[in-house]
């Protein structure tokens, strides 16, 4: 199973083994990672599962679709070039070793 590391706002790190086909948002909320809120369950209407993808992995992520692109503009922290909504990051084998920083605040 691909390993993904989440960096919390307090710099602590959590490493999860996430099955291929599961989104980072679902894996994080299922494991009680509080920094990922995911209020709308992946519907691209809340922008509360915002993460920043660390160096070297951005091009391994699925392309940003229109609804995600729109919502990224309304994250509480504000958008940066490596911003993604983690509900759209569905894990593939390619993502093994991925590190994402949890945006703060989400709400």
């Amino acid at each position, binding site marked *: 199973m691909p390993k993904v590391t989440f960096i919390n706002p307090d710099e602590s790190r959590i490493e999860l083994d996430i099955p291929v086909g599961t989104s980072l948002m679902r894996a994080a909320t299922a494991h009680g990672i509080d920094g990922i809120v995911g209020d709308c369950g992946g*519907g691209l209407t*809340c922008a509360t599962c915002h993460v920043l993808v660390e160096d070297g992995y951005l091009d391994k992520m699925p392309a940003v679709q229109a609804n995600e692109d729109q919502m990224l503009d*309304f994250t509480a922290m504000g958008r940066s070039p490596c911003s993604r909504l983690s509900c759209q990051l569905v894990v593939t084998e390619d993502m093994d070793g991925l590190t994402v920083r949890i945006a703060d605040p989400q709400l």
Partner: protein
Amino acid sequence: MSEAALSTKTIDAPVLEIDPYSLEVLRDPYPFHERLREAGPAAFIERYGVYAVGRHAEAAIVLNDHARFTACGGIGIQDIRKPGDFRIPNRLLENDPPGHTAIRATLTKYLSPIVIRRWREHFETEAKGLVEELVAKGEFDGVEDVAEAFVLKVFPAAVGVKLPRKEILAIGEMRFNQSGPPNELYHRAMERAKPYLEWFENSVRREGVTPGSIAEMLFDAEDRGEFEEGIASNMVRSFVGGGTDSTITGIGHTLNKLAQNPDQWALVKADPNKVRAAFEEAIRLESPFQVTYRTTTGQAELSGVQLRPDTKVGVFLGAANRDPRKWQEPDRFDVTRDTTGIHLGFGTGAHICIGQMIARLEAEAILRALVTRIDRLEPAGLPRYRPINQMRTLDHLPLRARLG
């Protein structure tokens, strides 16, 4: 024949002779839903010449594939591009990308989650006030005195439209019957709404909306060229239609299920954060929008079933939300179930409900206020459903609040 050859063989959709819009089905849609799911990935509804989909997986495929299943033919059973249908098309919903994308992007600017979250405190204050009135009454109607009273108090004001109760309920009933076939319900609802049509047209015009509101901002955006002409008014119309009856209904179903299931009430009482899960589960179990349509653009294959071109496909969200292929014990109301973003009650794909965070905020505010203030919620009589072609909605819900 080899197995590979068998697996690529496609069949025509099995024919169902049932009328999904008969009063019998509308009063209790679940036996029809089961027949539909068991018939196959898609069935053909002989009476109306349309396809119907009731399984979760295929429902999601249809809603996510606008190239093969267009929304431009309208979300009702009739094709709005053909003569005979008098509805005013929703220019966001009854539209495909890329035209849809541009309108949705602009709308999202004015109705973003940041804007919506600012309403929380006000909604909570209003909810507490209403719950005090309910406690004083002791017995009340979960639809009229709770869901309708709360939604009509906070939602129109938040977006900037004026919605008196009698008018808006008649208009809603017309709209959600009009998206079905021209049956008796349809004609009766049109007749009843007639006296209010002019009022409705005026209330979605610039002059009718509240100065300084989101609705007015949409008209200003249109003046600046952010929307094509006519979109602002069409969007205000779409909020009123999409956002009022649906939320009232969803809150009503949640109250009904909580009153009927004391064990689930106890879970929510012990942890009021669970009111959100309760609302979500009620939307799964009694989906306010039961069905939405797409139209095949060409010959299309859906999980081995061949669909004819230019034909309506009814996506029965309520059936998908109880599909045993997706859910364990699908008919059970269970607030611990993982449903948010998985059930299709808010749709999926490009048109997924843009107002869902508003609906959740309203539901959370009123349900939390109730759960924290009272100890038990009990049925005080039998609930009554109101048959509407496109919706699953409660008419009366007698409830009793118990303290201590």
